[in-house]
């Protein structure tokens, strides 16, 4: 018995299932969604504006705070863009460590996704398990960069420091134990009737529509589009690794769930290959005009001190020009478009956030379904408001 009365419901900005400060104004016919108007910007900090007033090094910590669940992916996109502008090569060891950290970041982000997505739909056990595993990556982050979330580890030209002793052992432990944990999640969810009822046929978006709405990353691959920047436009040495790019068929929440799970297994696979190919060597490019001098020079020589001071205070000039560099972040294509006027600060830095564009398709995906299914759609889009609002 359909009623013609439309009810407007406000969801968020403070709501446990909107994964941050997202506000949705929903028009309902009974329980059926007729219209969704997202309101964003509650977390807008003006990162793009701020970066115009900071040197290239000082902008790296700002990028940590975009997608705060995957800080190193943001760092990677940014430093790659600046390196492209400068035209400098990064040593192989630094590239390999970057790949290891970027893939660990993907695991970290996907673990939060599966935890919160499952919790939204009612599977609390997965939440507890996934956060337990995430803690291993968090402690590795802390050991390697000194911070659990805002890592600020990559530098233009390489890394802030080489890895600590025992890094390889810690990563091996993650690589060896995680596939078993993924089996546990799949055991809890993949054939679970409640999970299937909530995800199969939910949030369907066809491949054409998904491309039209600019959806990227696992959400696009869930709609059957075989496209991954790591394979198709490789950066940071990804062309050296063998990995599968999973694609879905039915374009629904369940397929996107399967795609992300395979992606986590493939991330472990890439880390294993990268670890095997890790050789000793420098972690900073031989580009003294850009990189910080070694600490022993700073402490012991006047030239080193001046060098350090100059780069820390004035920064380094970057040739005039503009580049766009994107990476396959856990949420999709994260792009940095940097315009330089030849100075020591970016003239304009544009961040192309995957979550922002993906969220634009929420009405398309949820219209006509029940309001309770909306939390599944938000979960499957895997949004992070820090990145949407910047």
């Amino acid at each position, binding site marked *: 018995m359909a009623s013609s009365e439309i009810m407007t419901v406000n969801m968020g900005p403070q709501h446990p299932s909107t994964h941050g400060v997202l506000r949705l104004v929903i028009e309902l016919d009974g329980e059926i969604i007729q219209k969704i108007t997202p309101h*964003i*910007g509650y977390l*807008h900090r*003006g990162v*793009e*504006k*701020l970066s*115009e*007033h900071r040197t290239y090094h000082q902008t790296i910590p700002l990028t940590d705070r975009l997608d705060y669940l995957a800080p190193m992916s943001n760092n990677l996109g940014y430093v790659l863009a600046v390196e*492209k*502008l400068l*035209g400098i090569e990064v040593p192989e060891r630094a590239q390999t460590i970057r790949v290891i950290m970027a893939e660990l970041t993907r695991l970290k982000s996907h673990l939060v996704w599966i935890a919160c997505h499952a919790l939204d739909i009612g599977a609390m056990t997965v939440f507890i398990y996934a956060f337990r595993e995430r803690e291993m990556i968090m402690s590795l982050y802390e050991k390697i960069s000194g911070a659990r979330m805002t890592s600020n580890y990559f530098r233009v030209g390489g890394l802030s420091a080489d890895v600590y002793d025992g890094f390889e052992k810690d990563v091996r432990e993650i690589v060896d134990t995680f596939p078993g944990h993924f089996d546990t999640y799949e055991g809890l969810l993949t054939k679970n009737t409640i999970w299937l009822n909530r995800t199969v046929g939910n949030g369907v978006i066809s491949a054409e*529509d998904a*491309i*039209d*709405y*600019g959806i*990227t990353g696992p959400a696009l691959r869930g709609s059957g*589009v075989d*496209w991954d920047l790591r394979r*198709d*436009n490789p950066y940071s040495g990804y062309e050296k690794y063998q990995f599968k790019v999973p694609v879905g068929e039915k374009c629904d929440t369940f397929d996107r769930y399967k795609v992300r799970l395979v992606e986590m297994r493939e991330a472990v696979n890439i880390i294993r290959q990268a670890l095997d190919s890790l050789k000793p060597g420098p972690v900073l490019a031989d580009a003294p005009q850009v990189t910080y001098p070694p600490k022993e020079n700073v402490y012991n020589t006047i030239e080193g001190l001046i060098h350090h001071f100059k780069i820390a205070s004035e920064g380094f000039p970057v040739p005039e*020009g*503009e*580049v*766009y560099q*994107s990476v396959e972040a856990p949420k999709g*294509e994260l*792009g940095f*478009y940097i*315009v330089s*006027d030849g100075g020591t600060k970016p*003239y*304009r830095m*544009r961040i*192309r956030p995957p979550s*922002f*564009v993906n*969220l*634009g*398709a929420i009405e398309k995906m949820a219209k006509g379904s029940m309001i309770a299914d909306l939390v599944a759609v938000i979960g499957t889009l895997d949004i992070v408001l820090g990145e949407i*609002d*910047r």
Partner: protein
Amino acid sequence: MAETNRAVIKLREKFAASVLDVKEFRGEVTVVVKREDIVEICKFLKTSLAYNLCTDVTAVDYLGKQDPRFMVVYNLYSIPNKDRLRLKAPVPEADSTIDTVSGVWNSANWLEREVYDLMGITFNNHPDLRRILMPDDWVGHPLRKDYPVQGPDREPYKGRLS
């Protein structure tokens, strides 16, 4: 390389009068076109050259550096061909408007809203041109170069040491 780019050749053939400049930097090809033809060019790029993903729409404010003041930038990607193209269209300050391409790619809808909100460029025929990140009643456009970084009516931050 820019001269042999498949899109550049076709655009020069078909829209000879609207291509203002072609540049290449670090292997990336940029085509500057007249803003009047932006929708036609985008339609052509999407249907004939398979640039099916509009990755990004943004704008740069060249206050005091270039005339016209604004440059609207489209970063396009072709999933079948795995290549990128950057399209730029100059927009003058006196009439800071350009036609919307949200009819060509739906992803441009929100991206253009953001450009409108932060840069103050109006997109003609846009289906839903409202502010997206700033509050609805906000005055000014924060990403413009003449907008102070600390916000309006506030003393500039002078640093910790001074």
